[in-house]
């Protein structure tokens, strides 16, 4: 659906933020979430934050700022959603929040320093982040985008970033 409405929407909304587990595709999520904050309330890790005004029409929807507070994949939030904006997720492995991506210029391992913090932080040990022959981290298709690696990375500003599903 293109036209003035779509243009206004793109103007009012920025890049998609990282969403909680089970979240629908960004546009459907923003349309269906009634901003009741129940997911944020049941999150034991205070990882779900209501989006601010800079998100435009998506203000009030829950987002994860992984560097500050990543998702621990406890999966308490999807069942508490009254609208189905967060669909039920069977297991942590099935979560699709996004995918981590290594920023080589910042990564210690890429500069020859021994570091495997991201590998150790990963809840999907030996699946989501592997090492290449030079011991540098490689993110695989199994990554669910929880952001634990981004949270723990010792590099300034984090050398591994979760790119939200649907983001650039």
């Amino acid at each position, binding site marked *: 659906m293109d036209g003035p409405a779509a243009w206004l929407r793109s103007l009012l909304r920025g890049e998609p933020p990282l969403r909680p587990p089970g979240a629908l595709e960004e546009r459907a999520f923003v349309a269906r979430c009634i901003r009741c904050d129940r997911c944020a309330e049941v999150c034991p890790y*205070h990882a*779900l934050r*209501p989006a601010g005004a800079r998100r435009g029409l998506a203000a009030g929807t829950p987002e994860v700022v992984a560097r500050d507070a990543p998702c621990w994949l406890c999966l308490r939030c999807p069942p508490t959603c009254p609208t189905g904006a967060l669909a039920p997720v069977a297991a942590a492995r099935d979560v699709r929040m996004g995918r981590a991506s290594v920023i080589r210029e910042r990564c210690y391992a890429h500069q020859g320093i021994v570091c495997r913090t991201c590998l150790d932080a990963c809840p999907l040990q030996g699946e989501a982040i592997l090492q290449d022959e030079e011991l540098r981290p490689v993110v695989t298709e199994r990554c669910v985008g929880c952001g634990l690696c981004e949270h723990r990375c010792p590099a300034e500003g984090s050398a591994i970033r979760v790119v939200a599903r649907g983001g650039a």
Partner: protein
Amino acid sequence: MAGRWSRWRRATQVIAALVYVGLPFVGEPWLAGSLAALRVGRVDLVEPAGALSAVLASGAIPRALLLGSLPVVALGLLLGPVYCSWICPWGFLSEGIDRLRARGARWPDRAWEAVRRPRVVALVLVLFSSALLGAPLAALLAPPRLVTALPVEAWSGRVVPWFTGGLLLAFLGLELLGPRRLLCRALCPAGAMAAVLRRRFTWSPRFFANQCRCPDAPACHQGCPWGIDPRVASFRDGCTSCMACVDRCPPGALSGRSRAYPRGLQA
């Protein structure tokens, strides 16, 4: 002025406000939420205007949303907008502000008439914009949601709630400087929905003309927080079943304990 009904209502409002301030500290899956959607045990209570705007924005009708709205709609049909007058912390706040600024000043005659239609128009506009913009504005902008989301955002979200707090401040400014109780009376989508749900059989003060002994400016009319004359009230007016008029009626011509609009009495 504080009669029986008013005391009960005040107590209910205080308890509701305390519950919503305390909820984020509970943070249990069986007891969580705001006035947009509350979960108690396995029961979902979803505010219908917000739910409807989400349905219009997303073009989907989720079963959970439908089921969650049903108890609230039933409550609205039976008890009227008690959501506004007995529960909503924003309403409580708004009443306090109005008392401060009005100092007992009475409403102009037929104060309600001026906002009856604009209020429904505002609700329709908000619902229409929700569909157009793809975001449930009736939930996003509703004062009851904003005021109950504030503690959740600050405690559970660990953020300074600029957006929610800013909107609330703007709304408070409107309540202080704009027409009296403008948000509750005319702009709140949740309140408009609660008012639209009122029927003839909905709980309301009942008037017995043969027991009325007051002259032109009766205490009931002066005491109504919306400026409605309960002697000529209709189920389509802005009565929120607060029962303030019943408390002020000296001869007992108004009752909160009988069927609302008996045959032949509708205005």
